[in-house]
């Protein structure tokens, strides 16, 4: 439609496993919660030999075994675990997957889980180019990274560019340094800040910059980010 390629970040076995483990905990907790309610609130013996017991175990089994197909179809290729891990299922053209594709993907879960602990699926993820399990191959789906933070940073850069006269490169560099300020070591961030400030303002006194404290350096970078004057090369 547009002639512009879509670039998607493929989720690797690590991210995939992370999403699966979160989902596994959610469905396990939901199923266990249902069983506890049945046992303590409705006072039902949890055994398949009595009708009441079996009908209490049945919803828990449905929650546990049909969690993925139901939620993936309802949420168009996503589950709570996938959302938390920042991934989503897409079809190979990058669009949302159809219901039949999602069902096929889940039918093959039985095969991917063989012989134990999703061994076949994991091996497939390691050896295939798109890091897909057998179910994804059959359904024509991919697990991609859902970079929601990128949109937020786009809006942030827009806002900064609107009120600042700095170049895009300088804006992004300053923004990244300030964003990661607390996670950087004190000595490293001081060195980076002084280097940036010297480039932003070549006339600045080097000795004065060396004497500046950590908080002052941060404040000066922040002031440059919000300033409406053009900077030198960064």
């Amino acid at each position, binding site marked *: 439609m547009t002639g*512009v390629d879509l670039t998607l970040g493929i989720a690797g076995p690590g991210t995939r496993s992370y999403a699966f483990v979160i989902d596994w905990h959610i469905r396990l907790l939901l199923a266990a919660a249902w069983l506890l309610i049945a046992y303590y609130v409705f006072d039902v013996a949890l055994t398949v030999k009595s009708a009441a017991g079996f009908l209490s175990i049945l919803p828990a089994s449905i929650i546990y075994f049909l969690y993925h197909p139901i939620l993936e179809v309802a949420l168009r290729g996503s589950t709570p675990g996938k959302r938390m891990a920042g991934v989503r299922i897409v079809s190979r053209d990058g669009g949302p997957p159809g219901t039949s594709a999602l069902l096929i993907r889940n039918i*093959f879960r039985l095969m991917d889980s063989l012989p134990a602990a999703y061994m076949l699926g994991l091996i497939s993820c390691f050896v295939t180019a798109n890091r897909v399990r057998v179910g994804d191959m059959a359904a024509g789906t991919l697990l991609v990274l859902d970079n929601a933070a990128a949109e937020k940073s*786009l809006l942030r850069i827009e806002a900064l560019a609107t009120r600042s006269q700095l170049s*895009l490169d300088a804006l992004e560099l300053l923004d990244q340094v300030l964003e990661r300020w607390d996670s950087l070591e004190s000595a490293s961030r001081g060195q980076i800040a002084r280097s940036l400030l010297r480039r932003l303002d070549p006339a600045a006194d080097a000795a004065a910059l060396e004497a500046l404290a950590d908080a002052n350096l941060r404040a000066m970078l922040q002031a440059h980010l919000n300033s409406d004057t053009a900077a030198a090369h960064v």
Partner: protein
Amino acid sequence: MSDASHIRQWLVSRAAAWRGVVQQVAALRVQRRATVDEALGAVEAYRGLARDLATARRVAPNSRMTSGLESLYGQLHGVVNRRPRGGMAALRLLFANEIPTAAYELRARIASMGLLMALSALAGWWLVATFPTLISLFASDDMIEHVEEGHLWTEGIINVMPSSILSISILANNIVVSILAFCAGIFLGLGTLYLIAMNGLMLGAAFAFVHQHGLARALFEFIIAHGPVELSVICIAGAAGVALGESIIRPTVESRRDSFQACAHRIAPVLLLCALLLVGCGFIEGFVSPDPGFPLASRITIGIAYWSIMWILMTGRLFSAREGKKESRHEGNSA
């Protein structure tokens, strides 16, 4: 004016449009339906964003701006290419067109699987008839003990377990067997052939064993109501699995992966029908088959009727007849 300044100015000039797209995407992602104006607006925004992304990739390839635009473009691509929820029309299409088409494609393989199961059953019968001790390979000690005492293992099952529970347990087991028969097709179809042959062997062996103890009629009475459809469904799932294996061995398109994927999509509707039919089988096997109150004639009638329903659904005759009537009525009105 420098390039850097131009880029910043361009970014500022497009900022409002991008902010609008972010809001548009957020709104459309949660909406079930969009109006024509909203859909046209999204397509227009998609084209605009594609132009901006192409520019951004050229002027600032590794910037946060470009990665933000990439992400936004991906989100909007998903919204613009979202398939509508089919509802009843999709269901009608599934039963009138997709299932019959897939079943027609599988017809030779279904017959082959039926033949394989029948031959395996004969082999199982011969094995146990010739070497009676081999029954221990196919049946549990409990089942053997029951038959040697002159009772089928299915007798009294309804007293041990309520019919509803029995139905659901049988349904779950049958669905797992059918899915396995289908999925095992990825091992070039060999996994499926093994499963079908084993099922046939077990069936033949069980019949030979109960025949030796004068219980063949009792077993026939037990399985005749649900058996025809249950065994047919396993053969259909097996045929689907073999088709899957064949799509890998002899790809019909450029790559084996694409061939495998296309085949899985083409034959998946038949599996859905299999699952639905197994629900009925579970119901019959839980409520009718173990109940001695049903005479043989009723059981045979139920078995034939249910198998006929399966045949009608597989061929799509019921729905295509309705569609034909609708079309002729529509043509009559137009004339």
